[in-house]
Every structure is written in C-alpha cells, then in structure tokens.
C-alpha cells in the first residue's frame, strides 16, 4: 500500500509511515455530499496512546470525518480500520472498541435517569451481566454523576447532560474515543474530569480524537494538532 507522503503530518506519534499496530487507520478518505466534495483524500494514522486534536472552521467536514471513522457513514472511497478491524465486515468487534460522542446535546432520553442510560449503554455494548453493574458505577463515579444518578435527564442542566453523554461514550471501556465538540456546556470541573479520563485511556494504550471548531482550545495538550481545511488534514 502506498502512503501519501505529502501528508506525513497526519501521522500521529512522529513516524512518517503507517505502523503495523496503528489503532486507527484512515487512508485516502474521500466523501462528497451531492456535488460538493467534503473530504478529498484524508490520511490519518492514530497510534495507541495518542491524543489527536482536529480543528477547523464550521462546515469543513470534521463531523463527517469522525462519522466515517466511527463507521456511521461510509466514505466514497478510502480505507477505515480500527485495531485491524473493518467497519462493516467486523462490525460488532469494531464497534465494541469504539466510543463516539456526537456534537450537540442529542442522543439522550428525557425521561430516563443517568443510571438507566448507562445500564442501556452497557447492555447495548454487550457487556456480560457480571461486569455491567461495576461498569455503570465506575462511569457514574468518573464523571461525577452520583448525586443525580437517579434523576430524570430532562431535570438536569446542560452541562450535567453532557457528562451523561460522555459517561455513555466510555461505559463499555472502548479503545478509541471519538469526541465531536465534547467541551460543549462543560464547566472547568467537567473538563478536568474528561482530561483525567483521557489520560487514563492513553496510559492503557487507548487513543482519542478530539474535534472542535477553530479557536476553541482543548483543555489538555495533544500529541498531534491538526486542522481540517479544503478537504484535507494539515498541521495546526
């Protein structure tokens, strides 16, 4: 396989060429919506333990790129692999290693409590019954949700809801986390909690991609800072 040598910056963890044990591989990703090209040959190789930030102006395709990386939509061409797994052929195993936080404040059920959300998330993650309760309690603790764990979500503040969404993303202990504007509505304590969890993830060989609009800084240092513009990733 040939690697686009013109875009070595997209390589995470300093090596120019794709490594055999890259956790996430996005190679030659192209996507257009109708006649408008959005991504025009994106290459991104994410090593284990890496934290990548991707910024870009509104409408440059950050969300589309994350959705392709998550297997939520297919690229028109290009390769996606997570831990060597294909997003369609190995779908269950692929999604078992993935945590995805979408932008905005959707994906919650107004009438369910955080605990019920996490229980549903753990079940959808196909966690064995014996591990479920511990995973839920851990997520409640890590994201400081204990005080309102049994309160309906529609009675929580926007920042508290964002913590629930984050906890749902992490509850099945994924290896790769894709975060689309995760700082949305989070206060400093929430950002610290998230930063701390991402550090833990890195230390055990996981990786994360943090997407946000240009000008909004991440609360922690990333290994690689990239900018998406004109359909390609460039160094920040």
């Amino acid at each position: 396989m040939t690697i686009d040598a013109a875009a070595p910056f997209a390589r995470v963890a300093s090596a120019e060429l794709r490594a055999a044990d890259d956790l996430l591989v996005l190679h030659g990703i192209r996507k257009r919506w109708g006649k408008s090209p959005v991504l025009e040959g994106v290459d991104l190789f994410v090593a284990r333990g890496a934290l990548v930030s991707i910024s870009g102006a509104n409408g440059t395709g950050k969300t589309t790129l994350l959705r392709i990386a998550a297997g939520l939509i297919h690229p028109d061409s290009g390769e996606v692999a997570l831990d060597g797994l294909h997003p369609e052929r190995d779908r269950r195993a692929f999604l078992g290693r993935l945590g995805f936080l979408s932008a905005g404040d959707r994906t919650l059920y107004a009438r369910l409590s955080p605990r019920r959300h996490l229980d549903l998330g753990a079940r959808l993650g196909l966690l064995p019954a014996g591990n479920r309760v511990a995973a839920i309690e851990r997520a409640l603790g890590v994201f400081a949700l204990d005080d309102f764990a049994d309160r309906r979500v529609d009675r929580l503040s926007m920042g508290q809801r964002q913590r629930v969404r984050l906890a749902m993303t992490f509850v099945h202990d994924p290896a790769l986390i894709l975060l689309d504007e995760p700082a949305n509505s989070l206060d400093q304590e929430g950002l610290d909690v998230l930063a701390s969890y991402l550090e833990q993830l890195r230390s055990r060989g996981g990786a994360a991609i943090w997407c946000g609009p240009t000008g909004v800084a991440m609360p922690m240092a990333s290994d690689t800072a990239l900018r998406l513009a004109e359909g390609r990733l460039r160094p920040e």
Partner: protein
Amino acid sequence: MTELALAGNRLAGTLGLVRAYLSATAGIVRRDAVIRASYRGTLLSTLVSVIFGLATFYFVSKLVRVPPFNSPGDYFAFTVVGIVVFGLMQSSLSIPSNLRQELVAGTYERLVLSPFGSTAATVALMVFPILFALTMALVELGVAVVVFGLHVEWDTAALALPLGVAGAFAFAPVALVFAAITLAFKQAPGQNAALAVFALASGLYFPVALLPWWLHWISEIQPYTPTVALLRHVLIGFPLPLGMSIAGAVAKIAAFIVIGIPIGVLLVSIAGRYGRRHGTIIEY
C-alpha cells in the same frame, strides 16, 4: 486443546453472545416501558379511548340485524375481536414512525454505533409496542366482557393468547419492510395507507365475503385475515370464513413468521448499509 474442548468453548461463546443480545433487547424494552409509564396522562387517555371506542361499536351493533349475525350482540362480539386485532396492527405498523422519531431525535445513532447494531436494535424496537398492544388487547377484552357483556367461549378462549402472540409475530414482517424503507429513505409514507387497506381487506368490522371479488386476493396475501378469523373462532365461537380451515389459517400465520421475519430482518440489514452509504441514517 482437544476438539471437544474447542467445541465447548465455541458453544459457551455463542451462548454468552445470545445472552448479551437478549439482555440488550431487554434494555430497550425496559427503556420503552419506563418512558411510556412516565407519561401517565397518555396511559389514562388510552384507557378512556378503549372504553369509548367499544361503546361506539356497542351502540352501532344495535342497528345490525342481518345474517350472518343473529343478534346485535353477535355483531358486537365480531367487531370487538376486529378492534383488538386493529390495535395489534396499528402498534406493529407504528414501529417505522417510532424509528423515524429515534432518527430525528438522534437516539438511533447510539443504537447504530453499539455492538448490538442497527439491525438487532430495529427488531428490538418492535418488542415493547407489541407487548403493550397485547396487554391492551387483554384490557379491551376485559372491558368488553365486564362493561358491555361480551359473551366469550371460555372453553377455547385460552387459545387466544398464543394465537395473539403468533399473530403479532406474523405482522412483524410488514413492519420490518416499512422500517427498512424508513432507514433507507428517511420516511415510509405508505404505512397509513397500508394500515387502512389491511384493515379493510382482513374483515375487521365486516365479513370478508362482503368484499367485491377483485379485492379478495388482498385478504389472502396477508397475515391479518387468518389471525382475526382464528381469534374470532376461539374467542366467540364465530365460524371461519368459507374455504378457510384451522390448519390452513395456522399454516399461513406460521409461514409469515418463518419466512417473513428473516426476509424482513434481511431488508432492515440491507437498508442499514444503504443508509450508511448514502447518509440517510444521519440526515435529520
């Protein structure tokens, strides 16, 4: 490791996976039940509409004194079973609308991106509405007996429960087809028309023999006609339509379950892939 031990490991893995899928399905059912129960006003209004719906047909039946009904009570009993089956039809065909709501609310994304997957999740989304419809069917029958004096054939009435469950499963393929259309094209505009056509052609409120001959084929090609006919037979002792046998009706329901559900699940799976390819799964 011996072949026997390997086979044992594989079996244990498969059983563990089946348990995990059942647990995820139970999670979705519990989610739907908690949400439904949280809207107590809706539950109350559903019960009130059941009573008034039955009352309407109770009074309409007073006007009916034509064969094959020997008395107004006969026609009322006939329509009560039709109303019960209509509730099951309506609830199974409401699943594409529920799916669209999930897509619009963004909650379906969580299901698509879980290891449980979009196909299994779409099937699991059907379980609570069908269980709820079966419960409401029992409530309707109970109200019809206690309040409106419906005469039930108690000797065979217990058979109505497995028949109702089988009927609900037999209706699933139609719902799955509309769910697949919703996933692929963001809406399934024909579902209300289909509900109206099936309600007419399956003889929910009048015997299918009254339909013009050129509409009879619609009565034959769907699972609602044999389900409603068998339910009437076991619940109120109403004779089966001419040309329909118990074995034939049961075979037709079984065929819709055994052949129709796998085809419906396959279509949902294909539609999910199509939606991921064309972006229809996220364009809301």
